[in-house]
């Protein structure tokens, strides 16, 4: 008689009801599209939706799965998001996490098939590059910012793969480096 409050978040028993989620997300995208004039506006409206989810899921994760133990180091926070947060929300890890070679403040999360894009496609002739995974980018930004690692996340396609580009504030890097010296 395990209540839902006792079940582990990281090994969800029920599958995400994909059809319901997709229909709801589709309405959110149509609503935002009707109020946006450019692709960037649409993506930033979707990211706004996601930010709320990010900060709330982070609280839930820390409280239920980690007994209130917070991550203080940058790399550990990134790994926490890549594995635990993703598993809690999407049932799988994020595909990859890379650091930019020219900028130590920038990291890239790589996802080949974001759940938001499962049913979304465009005509072959269209050159629209709306990436509805901007929603997930917002989740990412909300989670990292609430964890104390201020950043900005941009979502884009490259070779049919979705990249979430995370750019941290310089203060985050300075703080992290000072913890190194302790």
């Amino acid at each position, binding site marked *: 008689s395990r209540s839902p409050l006792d079940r582990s978040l990281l090994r969800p028993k029920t599958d995400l009801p994909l*059809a319901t989620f*997709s*229909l709801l*997300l*589709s*309405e959110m*995208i*149509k609503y935002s*599209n009707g109020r946006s004039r450019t692709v960037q506006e649409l993506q930033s409206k979707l990211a706004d939706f996601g930010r709320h989810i990010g900060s709330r899921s982070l609280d839930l994760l820390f409280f239920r799965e980690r007994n209130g133990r917070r991550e203080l180091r940058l790399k550990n926070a990134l790994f926490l998001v890549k594995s635990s947060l993703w598993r809690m929300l999407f049932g799988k890890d994020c595909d990859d996490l890379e650091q930019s070679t020219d900028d130590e403040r920038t990291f890239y999360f790589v996802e080949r098939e974001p759940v938001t894009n499962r*049913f*979304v*496609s*465009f*005509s*072959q002739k269209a050159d629209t590059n709306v990436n*509805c995974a901007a929603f997930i980018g917002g989740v990412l930004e909300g989670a990292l910012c609430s964890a104390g690692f201020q950043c900005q996340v941009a979502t884009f396609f490259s070779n049919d793969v979705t990249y979430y580009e995370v750019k941290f504030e310089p203060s985050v890097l300075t703080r992290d480096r000072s913890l190194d010296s302790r």
Partner: protein
Amino acid sequence: MPVYNIMIINNAGALVYTYTDQSRLLSSANELEKTYSYPLEPVIEVQDSRCCVVFGEADGVRIGHCVLAVNGTNVQAGRPTLLENGQEVMSVLANPASYPVSIKFGKLKLTANERINLAGMFHSIYAITAKLSPVAGSSGLQLLETDAYRLHCLQTVTGVKILVITDPKQANVNQVLKRIYEIYADYALKNPFFTMQGMNINFTLFEEAVQSMLRHLDKFGNLTNLAP
């Protein structure tokens, strides 16, 4: 290819999706070429802006056959009453100096406009057939059979009709209709960029799913083990 044609008609009677099996159109099995001397035996007239045989079936040339080429010159693609060299088909055939003339007969592709009109007509016919039923709650036209093809129709609860035209001997078409309905529900209805008002369905994931279904049907003859 097992399926000749797929059409989806929305609940207002507008055609929103067409798939045509291209390989069947190019097959020369449907064409025949015959040489005639003056005067021409089959009576050819202009109907629906194309030149068709209306009388005088002989040697495989049937009523409804359209002129595809005269003396080796094809008709123009958008205007089938003209040849590619600019001459009018009817004038060439009326001129005794062109004889003996060799004419290629066959079936011309339906234009997009014609398809839209026919879809609207089918929408009305479906409603009529439902009304003619002596019992309450009957569906409309579900199966139409000719000696060359069968037309299957599935009407969904929202009034969207899925039509599939196949060979008369093709089996398991109900699975195909159901699968197309699933594809429509997934890649059109869940797509935020699909507006329901008569917009054509033109999405890569939709086309890929239809192609994958057709390949599976071609290979196995049924859709029972189709991966979702």
